[in-house]
């Protein structure tokens, strides 16, 4: 219920920002479409802590600036490698252990790995991520486990949504 209310609020703010009109007719039409969409999402059973993770909001705002800094740093590293005449790449496939407690945390970790150029998550098996790294430095930087620790600290794995996985499910995102 809380998730549905918050989803409706976010959708209505989006409607207001994108339309830019403040007349009674358009506001009520927007309200109607928001209700219809929340109902459809409820029928599709996607309104839960995974589809709309409001319990992460506060800590996510602490995580994103760090992630942005990481993205800029690794962008500069990869750009340096690309523009050199000899292109000193040493592609490798490494395995990284994900210590997150929930699937949502694993998705965030896999997406963070992919967002930083130089490392791309290409497969996931339970809690082992198969990562393609462009250079040796990128692979070593990932294997120190700093990003893994940050993501684990961000998602509250002692919180109300503990791990409840049943079978071998592949695919992150």
């Amino acid at each position, binding site marked *: 219920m809380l998730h549905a209310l918050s989803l409706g609020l976010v959708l209505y703010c989006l409607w207001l920002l*994108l339309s830019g009109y403040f007349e009674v007719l358009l506001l009520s039409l927007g309200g109607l479409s928001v209700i219809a969409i929340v109902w459809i999402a409820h029928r599709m059973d996607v309104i839960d802590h995974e589809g709309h993770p409001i319990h992460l909001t506060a800590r996510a705002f602490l995580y994103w600036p760090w992630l942005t800094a990481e993205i800029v740093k690794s962008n500069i590293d990869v750009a340096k490698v690309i523009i050199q005449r000899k292109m000193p790449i040493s592609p490798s496939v490494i395995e990284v252990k994900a210590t997150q407690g929930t699937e949502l945390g694993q998705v965030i970790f896999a997406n963070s790995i992919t967002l930083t150029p130089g490392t791309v998550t290409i497969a996931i098996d339970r809690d082992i991520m198969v990562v393609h790294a462009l250079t040796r430095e990128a692979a070593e930087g990932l294997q120190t486990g700093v990003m893994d620790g940050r993501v684990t600290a961000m998602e509250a794995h002692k919180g109300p949504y503990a791990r409840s996985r049943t079978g071998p499910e*592949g*695919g992150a995102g």
Partner: protein
Amino acid sequence: MMFSVAAIAVLVTMVLTIYRAIKGPTVYDRILAVNAFGTLTVVLIAVYGFLSGRPEFLDLALVYALINFIGTIAVSKYVEFSHMGRPSGGDELGDI
């Protein structure tokens, strides 16, 4: 002035990605190049909106970003399974 520089950079990068999309060699290279081309199109629409002083173009850029995402996912899935529904082989890789 700055907008023209950005627009030229985007156009140069578009030529590079189109080269990769034509050259291939695998179909996945082409999908990758077309996806990057779509992102560049979003940036080009936004920059052109500022260049011509009509920021309403941003709505188009937003919609194009949505279509680019869904299109790339759909094409990847189509190439992987040769159809858009459940896989026929009976393996577990149903959803991307």
